[in-house]
């Protein structure tokens, strides 16, 4: 008795000018049905102007641990931040 539909991840653009943001997931037999279900499930109160659906199985994610060495290269490059540089207070517009 079990005919399970695959899982889809849903991304919504809340309004023009914003990125699509992940809001959750749902089950649907195909992409078109996933879009319709996403509209019914995640935009009942005008929460979105555009929807992306992606098969959950097609998402490749980084390692589970968010403190992973994978992100370490960003940690030791303080010179990428504007506050790294000493500029006298009386220099205008900087």
């Amino acid at each position, binding site marked *: 008795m079990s005919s399970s539909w695959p899982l889809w991840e849903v991304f919504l653009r809340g309004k023009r000018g914003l990125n699509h943001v992940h809001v959750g997931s749902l089950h649907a037999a195909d992409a078109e049905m996933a879009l319709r279900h996403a509209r019914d*499930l995640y935009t009942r109160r005008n929460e979105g102007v555009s929807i992306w659906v992606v098969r959950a199985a097609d998402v490749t994610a980084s390692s589970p641990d968010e403190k992973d060495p994978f992100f370490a290269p960003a940690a030791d490059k303080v010179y990428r931040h504007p506050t790294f540089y000493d500029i006298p207070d009386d220099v205008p517009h900087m």
Partner: protein
Amino acid sequence: MTDLLEQHFDATIAHDRRIEPRDWMPDAYRKTMVRQIAQHAHSEIIGMQPEGNWITRAPSLRRKAILLAKVQDEAGHGMYLYSAAETLGADRADLTELLISGGQKYSSIFNYPTLTYADVGVIGWLVDGAAICNQVPLCRSSYGPYARAMVRICKEESFHQRQGYELLLTMMRGTEAQRAMVQDATNRFWWPSLMMFGPPDDRSPNTERSMAWGIKRHTNDELRQRFVDMTVPQADKLGVTLPDPDLRWNGERGRYDFGAVDWSELDAVIKGNGPCNAQRIDARRKAHEDGDWVRAAALAHAAKAAS
């Protein structure tokens, strides 16, 4: 290695940061979280039935549209929550099987019948009011996907409670018979609403660990008291009497005192002996089984279109 992962988990909780789906977590945390989210999802899905009972008999097109929207929201809330449970590795089809086989529970409140249209109003006012009391703190649950689902749900619940209270206000301005219906519905739903917060703290063995893990933010008794304090002035304004002779303001505590809840009733309903347990599960099983050919046909269509 596990020690290090556990330290990381504990530190995340201690800093009141969120646990996210692919993080390492203790097995007991995952199990507790899946059970809590699944039972919450089941409650939303079963919760469609008592009110759905009145959709075809709503007294006006306005009330019918409102009730339809509310019941659709309950379905949506169930879906948000199943989605959150799936991030922990649970399978939605398995959860549905667990619900209809009695392997997992849902809120005891939905095992009471809706005898009159006033029940629709009282469910919005008291049952959704109690649910909001329970759910607002869960927006800060330590498990990220659950907390985010709760934020969406709480935003939508506010409409549910307000439509119920407005419905009751309208009936209270009506005939003597309508006022009697509101009082009768209040009498029937008051105590079951207080039971929604679960057993008293001294009979809730998992509360301590759940609080330590940020799964639960307040104890059952704290939330129950908060609900009583919020609801008494609403009952006064509405003009109904809450069916508790011991209910009175305690100036010393700055809170309302209220009578003892009959916990044997909650135990009986949870064990399956409430007025509607069998009916609710049968209806859910029938909907699931009757829908099987639709799921199969849609899958076959998708497979054919893809080939």
